[in-house]
């Protein structure tokens, strides 16, 4: 079973401090980490490999220091890692990023499963995984909390606010994972030693079959107009009474109180 996991190196947002004078984020000195949901994807891949055999390859598009993120995944037990890095890829939005990652996955040859985290904690778009599937023309299932594979079929539980959707899908397939999927393992000492000795290959523009116009900043149609925090959806109120009459009375009382009626 060939599994590719796409990971992103992100700033550890729990360590980000606010400059008290300018009220902006202090990015300097903030440690970089593997995007937490991507670690859930790595863990899911490692569990499947342990059960069915095969190979887990971790890929990341980013600057040279993103190798540290890949190294951490190797220390967890991934078999191989590839960094996709070139100035030509810089400034990419999700479309250009997913296009580049998809080209790298094509170069890897036969792949049964492509795993991503549900979203990155810095951009929070949740777009790169699904777009990779579109570029490759394969099915996708997002928000996966559980995965079992039997031959060419994957049986999944897709997490919703109020339950799970059970989906069966043929491989190859792209899955994005949620936090509740698993508890990512710690790297081991042996894994850490191995990861530090490993040479992580870097694939540049020259290594990929791509249309240069679709890469980096110039291949990125996204225009950010405004960034804002969406209004929090408040929890609904459940009125439970012994009889419908009592429940309706309570409802009317509340609606009156809220000046709706």
């Amino acid at each position, binding site marked *: 079973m060939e599994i590719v996991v796409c990971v992103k190196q992100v700033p550890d947002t729990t360590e980000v401090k606010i400059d008290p004078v300018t009220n902006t984020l202090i990015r300097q000195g903030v440690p970089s980490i593997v995007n937490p949901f991507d670690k859930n994807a790595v863990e899911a891949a490692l569990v499947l490999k342990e059960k069915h055999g095969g190979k887990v390859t971790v890929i990341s598009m980013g600057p040279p220091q993103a190798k540290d993120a890949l*190294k951490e995944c190797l220390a967890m037990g991934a078999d191989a890692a590839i960094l996709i890095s070139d100035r030509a890829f810089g400034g990419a939005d999700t479309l250009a990023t997913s296009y580049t990652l998809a080209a790298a996955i094509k170069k890897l040859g036969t792949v049964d499963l492509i795993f991503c985290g549900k979203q990155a904690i810095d951009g929070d778009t949740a777009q790169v995984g699904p777009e990779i599937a579109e570029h490759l023309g394969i099915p996708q299932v997002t928000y996966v909390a559980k995965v079992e594979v039997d031959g060419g079929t994957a049986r999944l539980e897709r997490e919703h606010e109020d339950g799970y959707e059970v989906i069966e899908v043929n491989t190859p397939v792209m899955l994005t994972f949620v936090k509740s999927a698993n508890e990512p393992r710690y790297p*081991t*000492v042996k894994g850490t*030693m191995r990861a530090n000795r490993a040479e992580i290959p870097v694939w540049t523009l020259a290594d990929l079959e791509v249309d240069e116009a679709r890469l980096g900043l110039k291949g990125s149609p996204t225009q950010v107009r405004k960034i804002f925090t969406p209004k929090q959806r408040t929890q609904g109120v459940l009125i439970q009474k012994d009889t419908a009459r009592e429940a309706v009375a309570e409802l009317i009382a509340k609606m009156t109180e809220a000046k709706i009626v």
Partner: protein
Amino acid sequence: MNFILTPEQEDIRKMVREFAAKSVAPTAAERDEKELFPRDIFDQMGQLGLLGLPYPEEYGGGGSDYVSYAIAVEEISRVCASTGIGLSVHVSLCSGPIMLYGTEEQKQKFLRPLAEGKKLGAFGLTEPNAGTDAANGSSTAVKDGDSYVLNGTKVFNTNGGEAEIYLFFAATDKALGPKGMSCFIVEKGTPGFSFGKKEVKMGIRSSVQRELIFENCRVPAANLLGKEGDGFKIAMGALDSGRIGVAAQATGIAQGALDEAIKYSKQRVQFGKPISTFQGVNFMLADMATKVEAARLLTYQAAFKRSNGLPYAKEAAMAKMFASDTAMAVTTDAVQVFGGYGFSREYPVERMMRDAKITQIYEGTNQAQRMVIAGNILR
């Protein structure tokens, strides 16, 4: 000269810090309160490879070095000194001598399961009447055919009762004094080997210190570590090495207390300002941080020397002495920064202060360290 850790050492710090925060710290206060030994945490440390960190992969170890090991003990002790000392005793005092003096067969039979974390190790040297004067114990080992018959009582044995593999030191020839002492590997469950009183202590309460009782305990002659008469040398070498572990533990305790004091001083507001803005408090924090840094450097230096085959006994003694005095001073100051809350069990600094005291005593009292240092510089 290079003060930068290798990428591997940095990664091990990161890994152990994360493990300590998620899997050791949450239960530290409760384990201290109820005197619970965390075998599950040791099992997890075994799976991660921490229990064999500095030993070669061919014996089930991690193949890393003594600096990484010191970092691991420090990071664990930063949140739980009890777990830190258990790790140190297992690696330095029990596994270390088997690595150095064991035959290939002994290494495969005893070091491998220790390094792989499948078995836990302990070390039995101290007796009720033989502490610093360790060569003057009354335990005996008498050769009888293909075996030795062991008799004696050891006290304050860290991991005692919980460990599966023990080193036991006893006189094979009392007349020869230190040169008549020998070391034996004894497995839990061997007839004649039992456990006595568990110490009730001021600190490191989640670690276990227990009496080991040997009554006509028969072990195969193949369990003799080194040769007859090597015991004292083995014990002293193990303690030199163990001092790096205790220095790392003490550095970790001090760093943990400093972290807490810094955090609290920024949150606690008096006279309308965080107390960290008052010089009376922040000068204390500056002094604490400087001491911790000095303790760490001495500790890593000793570990580096050991890893690189250089003499390190003096450096390990200095590191242990200075780091343990630092742990005591810094934890006491941390309690002071917290004021009344520091004295309360609501906050972890009082536990750290109680835990710090023992680091000035075990693995050789700080007075014994001065004997070692003076002996080295006056040669």
